[in-house]
Protein backbone atom coordinates (compact mmCIF):
# COMPACT_ATOMS: atom_id res chain seq x y z
CA UNK A 1 0.00 0.00 0.00
CA UNK A 2 1.25 3.48 -0.84
CA UNK A 3 2.37 5.63 2.04
CA UNK A 4 0.35 8.79 2.61
CA UNK A 5 2.31 11.99 2.00
CA UNK A 6 3.13 13.17 5.56
CA UNK A 7 3.09 16.78 4.45
CA UNK A 8 -0.54 16.50 3.40
CA UNK A 9 -1.52 14.14 6.17
CA UNK A 10 -2.11 16.95 8.61
CA UNK A 11 -5.51 18.51 9.15
CA UNK A 12 -4.76 22.16 8.42
CA UNK A 13 -2.36 21.59 5.52
CA UNK A 14 -4.78 19.16 3.90
CA UNK A 15 -7.66 21.63 4.33
CA UNK A 16 -5.60 24.42 2.75
CA UNK A 17 -4.61 22.21 -0.18
CA UNK A 18 -8.22 21.04 -0.66
CA UNK A 19 -9.39 24.65 -0.96
CA UNK A 20 -6.55 25.70 -3.24
CA UNK A 21 -7.16 22.72 -5.52
CA UNK A 22 -10.68 24.02 -6.05
CA UNK A 23 -9.88 27.68 -6.77
CA UNK A 24 -7.35 29.58 -8.83
CA UNK A 25 -6.05 31.62 -5.90
CA UNK A 26 -7.09 32.47 -2.37
CA UNK A 27 -5.76 35.02 0.06
CA UNK A 28 -4.56 34.48 3.61
CA UNK A 29 -7.71 35.92 5.23
CA UNK A 30 -9.99 33.66 3.18
CA UNK A 31 -7.95 30.57 4.10
CA UNK A 32 -7.87 31.57 7.76
CA UNK A 33 -11.65 32.04 7.88
CA UNK A 34 -12.48 28.87 5.99
CA UNK A 35 -10.15 26.79 8.15
CA UNK A 36 -10.93 28.57 11.42
CA UNK A 37 -7.21 28.62 12.10
CA UNK A 38 -5.05 31.13 13.94
CA UNK A 39 -2.95 33.43 11.79
CA UNK A 40 0.28 32.14 13.33
CA UNK A 41 -0.51 28.48 12.78
CA UNK A 42 -1.77 29.04 9.24
CA UNK A 43 1.34 31.04 8.41
CA UNK A 44 3.60 28.21 9.60
CA UNK A 45 1.68 25.59 7.61
CA UNK A 46 1.68 27.73 4.47
CA UNK A 47 5.45 28.10 4.81
CA UNK A 48 5.80 24.30 5.00
CA UNK A 49 3.66 23.78 1.90
CA UNK A 50 5.55 26.52 0.11
CA UNK A 51 8.95 25.07 1.08
CA UNK A 52 7.83 21.71 -0.35
CA UNK A 53 6.92 23.46 -3.59
CA UNK A 54 3.25 22.56 -3.25
CA UNK A 55 2.00 26.15 -3.22
CA UNK A 56 3.25 29.61 -4.08
CA UNK A 57 2.80 32.41 -1.59
CA UNK A 58 2.82 35.89 -3.03
CA UNK A 59 2.86 38.91 -0.78
CA UNK A 60 1.55 42.14 -2.24
CA UNK A 61 -0.76 45.04 -1.63
CA UNK A 62 -4.48 45.57 -2.17
CA UNK A 63 -4.74 49.32 -1.89
CA UNK A 64 -2.87 50.19 1.29
CA UNK A 65 -3.40 46.82 2.94
CA UNK A 66 -1.00 43.90 2.61
CA UNK A 67 -2.41 40.86 0.86
CA UNK A 68 -0.94 37.36 0.77
CA UNK A 69 -2.16 35.25 -2.11
CA UNK A 70 -1.70 31.48 -2.29
CA UNK A 71 -1.88 29.27 -5.36
CA UNK A 72 -1.30 25.57 -5.80
CA UNK A 73 1.64 24.62 -8.04
CA UNK A 74 1.68 21.77 -10.59
CA UNK A 75 3.83 19.81 -8.10
CA UNK A 76 1.24 20.45 -5.39
CA UNK A 77 -1.55 19.35 -7.69
CA UNK A 78 0.30 16.11 -8.50
CA UNK A 79 1.03 15.46 -4.81
CA UNK A 80 -2.60 16.09 -3.87
CA UNK A 81 -3.88 13.77 -6.57
CA UNK A 82 -1.42 11.09 -5.47
CA UNK A 83 -2.56 11.59 -1.88
CA UNK A 84 -6.22 11.16 -2.83
CA UNK A 85 -5.35 8.07 -4.90
CA UNK A 86 -3.50 6.61 -1.90
CA UNK A 87 -6.44 7.41 0.36
CA UNK A 88 -8.73 5.53 -2.00
CA UNK A 89 -6.61 2.41 -1.71
CA UNK A 90 -6.68 2.68 2.09
CA UNK A 91 -10.44 3.03 2.03
CA UNK A 92 -10.89 0.39 -0.69
CA UNK A 93 -12.79 2.87 -2.85
Amino acid at each position, binding site marked *: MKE*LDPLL*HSQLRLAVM*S*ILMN*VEEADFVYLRE*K*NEATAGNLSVQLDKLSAAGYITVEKGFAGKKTRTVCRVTPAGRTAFEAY*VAALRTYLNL
Partner: protein
Amino acid sequence: MDNKTLNPHESMALISAMIEQSKHRVAMSDLRVSIMWGLLTIITAVMVTVLLLTMGDPVYNYGWFAIPAIGIPLNIFMQRRKDTPRVRTYIDTISDAVWKTVGYIGLTVTAACIVFNVCGYRQAWLAMFYYAFIVVGFGAVATGIVIKEKSYLCGGIISIVAGFIIIAAQLSGFPLLVAWVMPLYIVCVLLMFIIPAIIINHKLKKSAE
Protein backbone atom coordinates in the same frame (compact mmCIF):
# COMPACT_ATOMS: atom_id res chain seq x y z
CA MET B 1 -8.51 23.58 13.00
CA ASP B 2 -5.10 22.37 14.14
CA ASN B 3 -2.26 20.15 12.93
CA LYS B 4 -3.49 16.78 14.13
CA THR B 5 -2.79 13.79 11.94
CA LEU B 6 -5.90 12.33 10.40
CA ASN B 7 -6.99 8.82 9.61
CA PRO B 8 -7.95 8.10 5.96
CA HIS B 9 -11.68 8.48 6.65
CA GLU B 10 -11.17 11.85 8.33
CA SER B 11 -8.92 12.97 5.48
CA MET B 12 -11.49 12.11 2.85
CA ALA B 13 -14.26 13.81 4.85
CA LEU B 14 -12.12 16.93 5.28
CA ILE B 15 -11.30 17.12 1.57
CA SER B 16 -15.00 16.82 0.69
CA ALA B 17 -15.99 19.45 3.25
CA MET B 18 -13.39 21.94 2.06
CA ILE B 19 -14.26 21.47 -1.60
CA GLU B 20 -17.93 21.94 -0.73
CA GLN B 21 -17.17 25.14 1.21
CA SER B 22 -15.12 26.78 -1.53
CA LYS B 23 -17.69 25.71 -4.11
CA HIS B 24 -20.34 27.84 -2.43
CA ARG B 25 -18.83 31.06 -3.57
CA VAL B 26 -20.82 32.25 -6.56
CA ALA B 27 -18.69 33.89 -9.16
CA MET B 28 -21.20 36.67 -9.68
CA SER B 29 -20.14 39.13 -7.04
CA ASP B 30 -20.18 41.52 -10.00
CA LEU B 31 -23.96 41.49 -10.33
CA ARG B 32 -23.98 45.27 -9.98
CA VAL B 33 -21.82 45.59 -13.10
CA SER B 34 -24.16 43.32 -15.04
CA ILE B 35 -27.19 45.35 -13.87
CA MET B 36 -25.42 48.63 -14.70
CA TRP B 37 -24.76 47.56 -18.32
CA GLY B 38 -28.28 46.19 -18.67
CA LEU B 39 -29.99 49.30 -17.29
CA LEU B 40 -27.75 51.67 -19.24
CA THR B 41 -28.51 49.82 -22.47
CA ILE B 42 -32.25 49.71 -21.80
CA ILE B 43 -32.46 53.41 -20.85
CA THR B 44 -30.45 54.37 -23.95
CA ALA B 45 -32.56 52.11 -26.18
CA VAL B 46 -35.82 53.56 -24.81
CA MET B 47 -34.58 57.15 -25.27
CA VAL B 48 -33.31 56.53 -28.80
CA THR B 49 -36.55 54.72 -29.71
CA VAL B 50 -38.76 57.50 -28.37
CA LEU B 51 -36.67 60.16 -30.14
CA LEU B 52 -36.64 58.25 -33.43
CA LEU B 53 -40.38 57.59 -33.32
CA THR B 54 -41.36 61.13 -32.32
CA MET B 55 -38.77 63.20 -34.18
CA GLY B 56 -38.02 60.84 -37.03
CA ASP B 57 -34.49 62.15 -37.46
CA PRO B 58 -31.84 59.36 -37.75
CA VAL B 59 -29.30 61.70 -36.13
CA TYR B 60 -30.70 60.49 -32.78
CA ASN B 61 -29.01 57.15 -33.46
CA TYR B 62 -25.85 58.83 -32.18
CA GLY B 63 -27.48 58.41 -28.78
CA TRP B 64 -26.21 54.80 -28.84
CA PHE B 65 -22.74 56.19 -28.11
CA ALA B 66 -24.01 56.93 -24.60
CA ILE B 67 -23.62 53.19 -23.84
CA PRO B 68 -19.79 53.02 -24.21
CA ALA B 69 -19.30 56.69 -23.23
CA ILE B 70 -21.04 56.21 -19.87
CA GLY B 71 -20.64 52.45 -19.42
CA ILE B 72 -16.86 52.10 -19.80
CA PRO B 73 -15.88 54.82 -17.25
CA LEU B 74 -18.60 53.61 -14.88
CA ASN B 75 -17.38 50.02 -15.21
CA ILE B 76 -13.78 51.08 -14.44
CA PHE B 77 -15.02 53.15 -11.47
CA MET B 78 -17.07 50.23 -10.09
CA GLN B 79 -14.13 47.82 -10.46
CA ARG B 80 -11.82 50.21 -8.60
CA ARG B 81 -14.26 50.75 -5.76
CA LYS B 82 -14.80 47.03 -5.33
CA ASP B 83 -12.73 45.29 -2.66
CA THR B 84 -10.09 42.93 -4.04
CA PRO B 85 -11.77 39.49 -4.05
CA ARG B 86 -10.31 37.21 -1.39
CA VAL B 87 -10.62 34.17 -3.59
CA ARG B 88 -10.58 33.76 -7.33
CA THR B 89 -12.04 30.71 -8.98
CA TYR B 90 -11.51 29.41 -12.51
CA ILE B 91 -15.11 30.41 -13.18
CA ASP B 92 -14.22 34.04 -12.38
CA THR B 93 -11.35 33.93 -14.87
CA ILE B 94 -13.45 32.38 -17.64
CA SER B 95 -16.38 34.72 -17.02
CA ASP B 96 -14.10 37.80 -17.06
CA ALA B 97 -12.40 36.61 -20.25
CA VAL B 98 -15.75 36.02 -21.99
CA TRP B 99 -17.06 39.53 -21.24
CA LYS B 100 -13.73 41.20 -22.02
CA THR B 101 -13.79 39.46 -25.41
CA VAL B 102 -17.39 40.60 -25.98
CA GLY B 103 -16.35 44.15 -25.00
CA TYR B 104 -13.31 44.24 -27.29
CA ILE B 105 -15.35 42.89 -30.21
CA GLY B 106 -17.90 45.64 -29.51
CA LEU B 107 -15.24 48.36 -29.57
CA THR B 108 -13.72 46.96 -32.77
CA VAL B 109 -17.09 46.71 -34.54
CA THR B 110 -17.95 50.26 -33.41
CA ALA B 111 -14.62 51.56 -34.78
CA ALA B 112 -15.22 49.74 -38.07
CA CYS B 113 -18.75 51.20 -38.31
CA ILE B 114 -17.41 54.72 -37.68
CA VAL B 115 -14.92 54.28 -40.53
CA PHE B 116 -17.70 53.04 -42.84
CA ASN B 117 -19.90 55.94 -41.74
CA VAL B 118 -17.16 58.46 -42.49
CA CYS B 119 -16.81 56.86 -45.93
CA GLY B 120 -20.52 57.40 -46.51
CA TYR B 121 -21.82 53.87 -45.88
CA ARG B 122 -24.35 54.54 -43.12
CA GLN B 123 -25.99 51.14 -43.46
CA ALA B 124 -22.84 49.65 -41.88
CA TRP B 125 -24.33 50.52 -38.48
CA LEU B 126 -26.61 47.51 -38.91
CA ALA B 127 -23.56 45.44 -37.97
CA MET B 128 -24.04 46.75 -34.43
CA PHE B 129 -27.41 45.03 -34.30
CA TYR B 130 -25.85 41.69 -35.09
CA TYR B 131 -23.19 42.35 -32.49
CA ALA B 132 -25.73 43.39 -29.86
CA PHE B 133 -28.00 40.41 -30.42
CA ILE B 134 -25.63 37.61 -31.42
CA VAL B 135 -22.17 38.29 -29.92
CA VAL B 136 -23.55 39.60 -26.61
CA GLY B 137 -25.98 36.66 -26.67
CA PHE B 138 -23.05 34.25 -26.94
CA GLY B 139 -21.46 36.04 -23.96
CA ALA B 140 -24.60 35.40 -21.91
CA VAL B 141 -24.74 31.76 -23.07
CA ALA B 142 -21.07 31.20 -22.14
CA THR B 143 -21.66 32.79 -18.71
CA GLY B 144 -24.72 30.62 -18.20
CA ILE B 145 -22.72 27.50 -19.02
CA VAL B 146 -19.76 28.26 -16.74
CA ILE B 147 -21.81 29.37 -13.74
CA LYS B 148 -24.56 26.82 -14.44
CA GLU B 149 -27.29 29.45 -14.49
CA LYS B 150 -30.13 28.60 -16.85
CA SER B 151 -31.56 32.13 -16.94
CA TYR B 152 -28.35 33.42 -18.58
CA LEU B 153 -28.42 30.51 -20.99
CA CYS B 154 -32.06 31.14 -21.96
CA GLY B 155 -31.57 34.90 -22.28
CA GLY B 156 -28.52 34.39 -24.49
CA ILE B 157 -30.22 31.82 -26.73
CA ILE B 158 -33.30 34.04 -27.16
CA SER B 159 -31.05 36.97 -28.10
CA ILE B 160 -29.07 34.90 -30.63
CA VAL B 161 -32.29 33.62 -32.22
CA ALA B 162 -33.63 37.21 -32.32
CA GLY B 163 -30.38 38.26 -34.02
CA PHE B 164 -30.83 35.63 -36.71
CA ILE B 165 -34.48 36.65 -37.17
CA ILE B 166 -33.27 40.18 -37.84
CA ILE B 167 -30.69 38.90 -40.36
CA ALA B 168 -33.39 36.80 -42.05
CA ALA B 169 -35.76 39.77 -42.07
CA GLN B 170 -33.14 42.01 -43.62
CA LEU B 171 -32.15 39.44 -46.25
CA SER B 172 -35.84 38.95 -47.11
CA GLY B 173 -36.35 42.67 -47.56
CA PHE B 174 -38.65 42.85 -44.53
CA PRO B 175 -38.37 46.39 -43.12
CA LEU B 176 -36.34 46.65 -39.90
CA LEU B 177 -38.65 49.10 -38.19
CA VAL B 178 -37.74 50.83 -34.96
CA ALA B 179 -41.19 49.90 -33.67
CA TRP B 180 -40.41 46.17 -33.50
CA VAL B 181 -36.61 45.89 -33.52
CA MET B 182 -36.05 48.16 -30.51
CA PRO B 183 -38.62 46.53 -28.21
CA LEU B 184 -37.16 43.14 -29.20
CA TYR B 185 -33.69 44.38 -28.28
CA ILE B 186 -34.90 45.78 -24.94
CA VAL B 187 -36.54 42.44 -24.10
CA CYS B 188 -33.32 40.59 -25.00
CA VAL B 189 -31.21 42.88 -22.77
CA LEU B 190 -33.70 42.36 -19.94
CA LEU B 191 -33.45 38.58 -20.38
CA MET B 192 -29.64 38.57 -20.71
CA PHE B 193 -28.63 40.98 -17.93
CA ILE B 194 -31.37 42.05 -15.57
CA ILE B 195 -33.46 38.89 -15.04
CA PRO B 196 -30.44 36.57 -14.46
CA ALA B 197 -28.94 39.12 -12.02
CA ILE B 198 -32.23 39.24 -10.08
CA ILE B 199 -32.47 35.43 -10.04
CA ILE B 200 -28.85 34.97 -8.88
CA ASN B 201 -29.26 37.68 -6.25
CA HIS B 202 -32.37 35.89 -4.97
CA LYS B 203 -30.49 32.55 -4.88
CA LEU B 204 -27.56 34.14 -3.03
CA LYS B 205 -29.88 35.62 -0.41
CA LYS B 206 -31.67 32.31 -0.04
CA SER B 207 -28.44 30.35 0.40
CA ALA B 208 -27.18 32.90 2.95
CA GLU B 209 -30.25 32.32 5.16
